[in-house]
């Protein structure tokens, strides 16, 4: 190999620069988000009724699309009642429905949103429930 030493040193320097962010911050890995669903409002409900509008899996995966749909239906079409797969009816409202149970925005919404580094602009206008300092 011509100039082998220089090439190998070059590759090593390159790799060093590329993995430096991981080496420098790798020690303090971000905690895996753990959204809490143990709000007083939820705990007050009987165990069998502790379900969200749709299944947990669906909500985890699709809640952002669902909220967008709810927004359009409620604001633009003036339709306010959503019937879930189980046949139960819900008012389509972030403040009046979602946050009534999930009254812990910082532990429920922000936990994952911060981890995923997404910043939805819901709370620029919508009023988050008052959380008690713990």
């Amino acid at each position: 190999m011509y100039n082998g030493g220089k090439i190998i040193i070059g590759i090593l320097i390159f790799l060093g620069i590329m993995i430096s962010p991981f080496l420098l911050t790798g020690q303090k890995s971000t905690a895996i988000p753990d959204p809490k669903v143990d709000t007083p409002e939820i705990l007050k409900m009987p165990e069998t009724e502790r379900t969200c509008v749709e299944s947990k899996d669906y909500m985890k995966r699709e809640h952002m699309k669902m909220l967008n749909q709810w927004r359009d239906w409620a604001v633009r079409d003036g339709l306010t009642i959503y019937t879930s797969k189980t046949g139960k009816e819900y008012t389509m409202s972030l403040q009046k429905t979602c946050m009534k149970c999930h009254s812990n925005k910082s532990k429920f919404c922000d936990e994952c949103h911060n981890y995923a580094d997404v910043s939805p602009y819901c709370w620029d206008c919508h009023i988050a429930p008052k959380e008690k300092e713990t």
Partner: protein
Amino acid sequence: MNRRKFLKIAGMSSLLGVGGFSVANTVRNELEASQIKSSPAALTAKRWAMVVDMSKFKSPEDYQKCIDACHRVHNVPTGSDDPKQEIKWMWTDTYEHAFPGNEDEYLAEKVKHMPFLLLCNHCDNPPCVRVCPTKATFKRKSDGIVMMDMHRCIGCRFCMAGCPYGARSFNYRDPRPHIDESKENPEFPTRMKGVVEKCTLCYERLAVGLEPACVEAAKEVAAKNGTTPGLIFGDLEDPNSAVRKILDERFSIRRKPELGTGPSVYYVL
């Protein structure tokens, strides 16, 4: 595989793919669309309208009660000294300003200084809707309410230039710090910096079967004064509605009807 065979397979599979995708999509949309409806309790009409009966308001406090009720329910920031920062959904102004072009030289002194209760006219042909580039403001086909979708407003303020009634206010600053937190309505959002807002005829209250906040406040004022309410709300296209009954009997005026916007708020003295 020769070229001819390859093209055949590629063509067929892309056709299947596109076709299958669109079929699946329509099925999905139908499923979703069948899951929603409006509340059975909701108040409905072909075209909502309001009659402001000026004779029923006895004092400035009577007007203020209606204005306060509206602003409290909708988390409208209050208490600003700077008129440029003012946000108003409902306000009062003189005859001269409310009905320009109709001033007479010898207008009754009483009428001249009467504080006319003003709000968005929910026009039949709203210029604000026509100029909005994002359709953030739109006229509801079902009941004629001129609505605001704050999610879409980009704050260009074309609508403010378009509205001949000055019914729209712009949030030059974050309104949150100017809303009294103890009085805020947790069931209604606030607005953010950079959006335009106005009266929405309490669409959120109509949806659950309640009358607009100002109409409700006017009823309380009327009960106190021992009169009939000064704000009457109803369906303009229903000949038996409360508003039509008044309009059939009394002489009414509207703000700037010559502009062809078709305002839905009527004033009777």
